[in-house]
């Protein structure tokens, strides 16, 4: 069938295993289909250019006199590739020997140790001795941008960083200066590296040559726990991995998701994510139950959860449906918003205002879905699903009725905010001034301290997981609200996010048909969102 026309697939043999791949696939990628990871430095799946310059990925192809770089070699029918033949191994070992000629081998103090491709390959190729007597050339370290350090001696000149900037970010301020053993990475003379996506060069660096200043000497790779999460910086919802050590976030790295952020994320997101967990937190439930001197007034006093929940449930039951208003955070998870909506419906509160801070936008030219968007909130779309109304300006309390606030900082609210409400319930991660007017304060966990989902700008529902322990008595919002509702005879108290998500999927049309496990680590579109995938953030319930 394949005279001249392009065939859709090709079949080749790699290390004795036959594999069929789409034509045009490079051998290095085809090898991954059979579970063989060919060592590589210059090749990166997210960077389009393949200079085949590191020569680490050489493989033997039957019938060809010389070894071929598998990162550029196209898979072809009947090709027989051997990635582990003696010649291929020897070639790889020689490359490592060459790289180690001037390498400082300061793994004990290098931040890449344990996650370093030079360390790994030196180990597997068993290149233990050097045949060079000359002293190593020493170049020292340099600051390549205001937040990235460059340890020139550790660089293997794979040019991934230069090519990420040039070919992915379309910014040519990074270059390879000099040649041969004097080569190093630098900014173009007279230029500065100042790109909103430059942090990714640290992630693509296969060794410890590029290090974020915030991370230098912070943690050894084996001391960190990695948790799959989602960046809450903007509605794009880049998939990330949060590295934690001793209940602190020490590093954030992008996690590959072809539908959202490809291999990358922006620098704003990295910083923002770390900051979301800083600051003084609300740690204990507080209620204003009169504290002994009558039913009204009195101080907020700390109580245990059972007392707080009983009291709040009693209050809500007594109120009936007085109406009122609510202020919600567009950073709250879908589950938190769903449970809050259920409670608000009980109270007869229809309106839930959310305010979205705005910021500058930034685009990564070659990845259209990845853009730092002006909305600086993780889940404005989710807030929209649950009857939220986008608002501007400071919130004002209602005159009478119930007032419920979900984790809004209440910036700009008056000193007597909520004073005229019959019942003011504040659920928050922190305790800003106006929240002290509340009748009950329930401390909740930040997104990094619990499991949950966000809905991104194209209504893609994405899971994040608990990376940290919440401080004090703070607990996930859905856990707390499900208990208030359970005390009112509405559903069960849930302890597991699956239970919360299941109830949401059963009751909220936008989440119909989705399951926690079904969403997986890559997310799934909300019901009826396919049609509006163009980027409209808003309620998508209509079609479902």
């Amino acid at each position: 069938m394949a005279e001249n026309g392009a065939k859709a697939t090709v079949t080749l043999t790699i290390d004795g295993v036959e594999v069929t791949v789409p034509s045009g696939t490079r051998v290095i990628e085809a090898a991954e289909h059979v579970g063989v990871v060919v060592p590589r430095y210059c090749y990166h799946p997210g960077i389009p250019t393949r200079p085949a310059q590191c020569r680490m990925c050489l493989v033997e192809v039957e019938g060809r006199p010389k070894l071929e770089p598998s990162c550029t070699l196209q898979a072809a029918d009947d090709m027989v590739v051997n990635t582990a033949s003696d010649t291929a191994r020897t070639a790889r070992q020689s490359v490592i020997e060459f790289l180690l000629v001037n390498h400082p081998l300061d793994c004990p103090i290098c931040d890449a140790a344990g996650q370093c491709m030079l360390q790994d390959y030196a180990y597997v190729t068993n290149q233990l001795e050097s045949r060079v007597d000359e002293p190593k050339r020493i170049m020292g370290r340099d600051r390549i941008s205001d937040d990235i350090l460059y340890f020139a001696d550790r660089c293997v000149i794979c040019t991934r960083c230069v090519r990420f900037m040039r070919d992915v970010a379309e910014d040519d301020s990074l270059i390879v200066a000099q040649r041969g053993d004097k080569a190093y990475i630098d900014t173009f003379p007279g230029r500065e590296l100042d790109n909103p996506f430059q942090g990714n060069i640290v992630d693509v660096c296969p060794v410890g040559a590029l290090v974020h200043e915030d991370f230098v000497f912070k943690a050894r790779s084996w001391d960190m726990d990695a948790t799959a999460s989602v960046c809450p910086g903007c509605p794009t919802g880049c998939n990330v991995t949060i590295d934690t050590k001793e209940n602190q976030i020490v590093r954030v790295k992008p996690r590959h998701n072809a539908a959202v952020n490809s291999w990358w994320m922006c620098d704003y997101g990295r910083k923002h994510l770390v900051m979301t967990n800083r600051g003084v937190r609300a740690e204990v439930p507080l209620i204003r139950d009169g504290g002994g001197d009558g039913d009204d007034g009195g101080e907020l006093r700390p109580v245990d959860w059972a007392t707080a929940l009983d009291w709040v449930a009693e209050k809500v039951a007594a109120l009936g449906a007085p109406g009122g208003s609510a202020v919600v955070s567009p950073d709250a998870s879908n589950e938190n918003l769903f449970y809050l909506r259920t409670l608000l419906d009980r109270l007869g509160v229809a309106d839930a205002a959310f305010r979205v801070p705005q910021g500058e936008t930034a685009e990564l030219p070659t990845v259209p879905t990845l853009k730092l968007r002006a909305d600086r909130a993780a889940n404005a779309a989710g807030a929209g699903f649950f009857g939220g109304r986008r608002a501007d300006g400071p919130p004002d309390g209602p005159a009478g009725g119930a007032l419920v606030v979900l984790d809004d900082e209440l910036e700009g609210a008056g000193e007597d905010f909520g004073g005229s409400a019959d019942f003011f319930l504040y659920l928050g991660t922190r305790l800003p001034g106006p929240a002290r007017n509340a009748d009950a304060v329930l401390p909740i966990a930040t997104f990094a301290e619990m499991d949950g989902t966000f809905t991104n700008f194209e209504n893609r529902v994405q899971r994040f997981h608990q990376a940290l322990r919440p401080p004090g008595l703070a607990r996930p919002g859905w856990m707390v609200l499900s208990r208030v509702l359970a005390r009112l005879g509405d559903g069960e108290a849930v302890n597991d996010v699956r239970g919360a998500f299941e109830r949401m999927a059963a009751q909220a049309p936008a989440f119909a048909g989705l399951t926690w496990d079904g969403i997986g680590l890559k997310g799934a579109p909300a019901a009826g969102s396919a049609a509006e995938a163009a980027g409209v953030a808003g309620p998508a319930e209509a079609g479902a």
Partner: protein
Amino acid sequence: MPGDVKVVERPRAESSYVRAAAKGMSITMRHLLSPNKKTQQYPDEKWELAPRTRGTHRMAVHEDGRAKCVACGLCPTVCPVNCIKLVPAEDESGERYAAIYEIDEFRCIFCGYCQEVCPVEAIHLGVHYENAEYSRERWVYDLERLVEQEHDVTALWDPQDPASQ
């Protein structure tokens, strides 16, 4: 009354303590007068320890007095009882160093792994045994104290026979 109690009559020669006491005294006298005394006059006389004795730690220093530790984190990682606390930091010249380095000698089992794993030969066990303290807290040795120790460091293996064959 419970059953019958059997009363055994012993001959006087056996039940008297005089004989036994006299025998004991004679042994004491013999040792007292013997030239071959074994009692060690501690603390005036100290034990001589083998070079591979594993006792409390000592940190090696550079010529300028800085601890050699580069805060690589290998010893806290390898330590089977988790008794080493390390917080790495960057000094003025951009070098990595241990801002906090503490060993809880109470918890330490003196396995010597820390010395073996250290890439810069900084931490060592010591040929040392006099560790009495008035409080438990004093058993947590900080970097300053580890640097000040003066006793010999442990030889983990015999240089003539590194594989112990």
